[in-house]
């Protein structure tokens, strides 16, 4: 008897109806029950009641093959919270040395606040000058992008912009864009990581601890430009404390239209899995985009792009397979830009498109709305 890995009440909710099968990208890849949500829940049950040994190979394989995209959640009529079952599973599966090295290294890294701050500063120094508003009409309502989101802005009682540990290192322009769009947000630089990375990689307690610490760093409403962080923070701090940028901007006046080569730009959106499936947010970013450009709905916009937190690092082969189908679709849609609302997806799409030398660019919603030019592509 292992017995205590899962919350038994959550585990018993699944009635094995199989309604989640068609939504699952890993099941689509294999057609194998073991890599479906229902099959994985059956495996979890076997682990819980001891009919499979804790070191069983399929348990290890399936807990890591799962993207954690939670596409199985909104389609489950029985209300199974698969995402949290997966987190509990990984606590067990990836305890101690079993946790993949890459995940361990990343988790250590993002916990170092001084490093976070430093990485942000270094990137800013390097890129600060290169970032220019794109030619053409800029969003009328938005002020010029703040040079450096540093001191807390005045006004907007209690709402603060979260900088994000990955984002401030890789995509400083995103926070800058967000601040330009919502200057009422305070931007304290002394803020840590939200802990989503920990929660998804087998350290639930660590994930909660970090989220709570961030909650203390940023009292009041936390506005984030990352769907993944939003879902994790909401799970720990409560939904009322957390807003993803698109919902924060939702009822503002539209900006001027975005034009490419003398015509209205064609843009598509890639949903953030956790934002869509965890928090049910998908209409707001679309509404914002429709106001400034011709919006094209990708047939699989709601399906994972394969970034899935650390997945692209831990399972590069599967991640690439999922991404390739997505990129085919993006190219076939004939869009100028594909928009992400999560840094992981942004990185995944940008890398993939660059590798293909595609003319399509991937930008974050905040970048697009402020017309901040994305980093130049290699020739």
């Amino acid at each position, binding site marked *: 008897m292992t017995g205590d890995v899962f919350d038994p009440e959550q585990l*018993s909710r699944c009635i094995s*109806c199989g*309604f989640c099968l068609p939504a699952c990208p890993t099941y689509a890849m294999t057609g194998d029950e073991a890599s479906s949500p229902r099959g994985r829940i059956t495996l979890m049950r*076997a682990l819980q009641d001891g009919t499979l040994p804790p070191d069983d190979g399929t348990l290890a394989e399936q807990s890591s093959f799962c993207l954690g995209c939670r596409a199985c959640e909104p389609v489950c009529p029985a209300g199974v919270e698969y995402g949290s079952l997966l987190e509990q599973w990984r606590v067990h599966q990836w305890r101690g040395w079993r946790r993949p090295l890459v995940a361990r290294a990343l988790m250590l890294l993002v916990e170092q606040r001084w490093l976070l701050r430093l990485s942000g500063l270094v990137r800013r120094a390097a890129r600060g000058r290169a970032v220019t508003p794109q030619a053409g009409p800029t969003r009328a309502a938005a002020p010029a992008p703040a040079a450096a989101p540093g001191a807390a802005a005045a006004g907007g009682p209690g709402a603060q912009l979260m900088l994000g540990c990955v984002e401030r290192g890789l995509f400083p322009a995103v926070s800058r864009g967000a601040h330009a769009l919502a200057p009422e947000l305070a931007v304290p630089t002394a803020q840590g990581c939200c802990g989503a990375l920990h929660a998804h990689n087998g350290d639930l307690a660590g994930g909660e601890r970090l989220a709570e610490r961030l909650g203390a760093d940023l009292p009041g409403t936390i506005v984030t430009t990352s769907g993944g962080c939003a879902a994790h923070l909401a799970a720990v701090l409560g939904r009322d404390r957390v807003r993803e940028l698109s919902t924060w901007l939702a009822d503002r006046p539209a900006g001027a239209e975005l034009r490419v080569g003398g015509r209205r730009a064609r843009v598509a959106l890639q949903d953030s899995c956790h934002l869509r499936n965890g928090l049910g947010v998908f209409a707001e970013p679309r509404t914002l985009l429709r106001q400034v450009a011709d919006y094209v709905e990708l047939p699989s916009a709601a399906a994972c792009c394969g970034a899935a937190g650390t997945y692209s690092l831990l399972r590069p082969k599967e991640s690439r397979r999922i991404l390739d189908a997505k990129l085919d679709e993006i190219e076939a849609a004939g869009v100028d830009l594909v928009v992400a609302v999560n840094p992981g997806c942004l990185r995944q799409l940008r890398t993939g498109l660059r590798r293909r030398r595609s003319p399509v660019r991937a930008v974050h919603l905040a970048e697009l709305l402020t017309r901040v030019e994305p980093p130049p592509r290699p020739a």
Partner: protein
Amino acid sequence: MALSATVLAELRGIVGPSHVHDAAGDLVAYARDATPLFSHRPDAVVFPADTAEVAAVLALATRHRVPVVPRGAGSNLCAATVPLRGGIVLVLTRLNAILEVSADELLARTQPGVTSAALADAAAARGLLWAPDPGSRTVATVGGTIATCAGGLRGLKYGVTRNYVLGLEAVLPTGEVIRTGGRLWKDVAGYDLTRLLTGSEGTLAVITEATVALLPAPASANTGVAYFPTLADAGEAVARVIRAGVVPATLEFLDRACIGAVEDFAHLGLRADAGALLLFGDDGPPDLVAAHLDRIGTACVEAGAVEVTTAREVAQAEALLAARRCALPALSRRGGVTILEDATVPRPRIAEMVDRIDAVAARHDVAIATFGHAGDGNLHPTCVLDSAEDHEAVRRAEAAFADIFAAAIDLGGTITGEHGVGAAKLPFLAARLGEDQLALLRRIKSAFDPAGVLNPGKLGS
């Protein structure tokens, strides 16, 4: 019974090493289907790619006396794909091509692993209708749909799957490949093996290709909802609708518990205070649909409906149907285990049957919610228990269902209208068919499957 190394090696030789799984965890995943309380691990899971591989696997199984359980999506509710005697689970999801859709001949040719919804979409793209419409259509495969002779939400007007199967390619347990029926509407040469295999629940042959009849897609469709104080009132409304000479495509009812559960999932704004809900729908020329919905609405009001509305847009109608399709899993929000059963009575006796179900539930002290395809007398009494670990409660539920099946037969009905017999209802089959017919079933079974390897413990056992 573990498979010998020789058998495993032969299997790997047939389908390729990566398409035979025998690790403990992989077997656990295939130990069950959508049926609660049944579970048994196979010894190997095999994923063939085509008819030839299926034939080779079956010939091998007969030679070595290894049980084989064909499996589509495993969404059946009668433990039909639980490998009770171990052996091989033969998963047919890799045979997933739609081979042909012909608008001229009004038919499609498809492999068995295609989902029912995918076939319906392919048909719709050519202006055609794939009529069978089980609640599980997005998951269930065409092979499973044919093998269980599934019904669904359009059953009243369109009947069950059997009416739409023109021909099959199937592999016998001994490895021969047969082709029954074909592309013709009129073809009466020989015994009707197409019908025999339809609904045979994977006990006679493995279906590897199906030619199915499609219909011209109806020009329009619409749906409405009526709320009643009690389930009996809804039953009365059904009787009045039929008496009014209207045979709608859809006539589904939910009791109070089901309405609440569906509303919790789908958030459609259903009236949770009503005692029962009747979901009705029809398809055809727009003015005919409107006229029918009107007459159904009137019949409902006469039967005591407190509110009748029709869907204002297609999206809303589809949302209503989708919500009804997931009534079963939604009900499980109410408790730990949800056991759904399937019994059919002649239409005029629905209200009586509902009363009997209530009495049975009270007698055995179990909670039973009921929903179903009211139009064709097909009811799904569903028992929600707190936990599978409460063995006493499970026993009470089982006793209650035994009484419910007896009541159905007593009222001139049957023990299953669409889900099939599987392992779960095998003990009740004799009561429905009688011993002589059962004996004939067994003789038919042994003619197809002399070694008794195909889905043992189910029909024909």
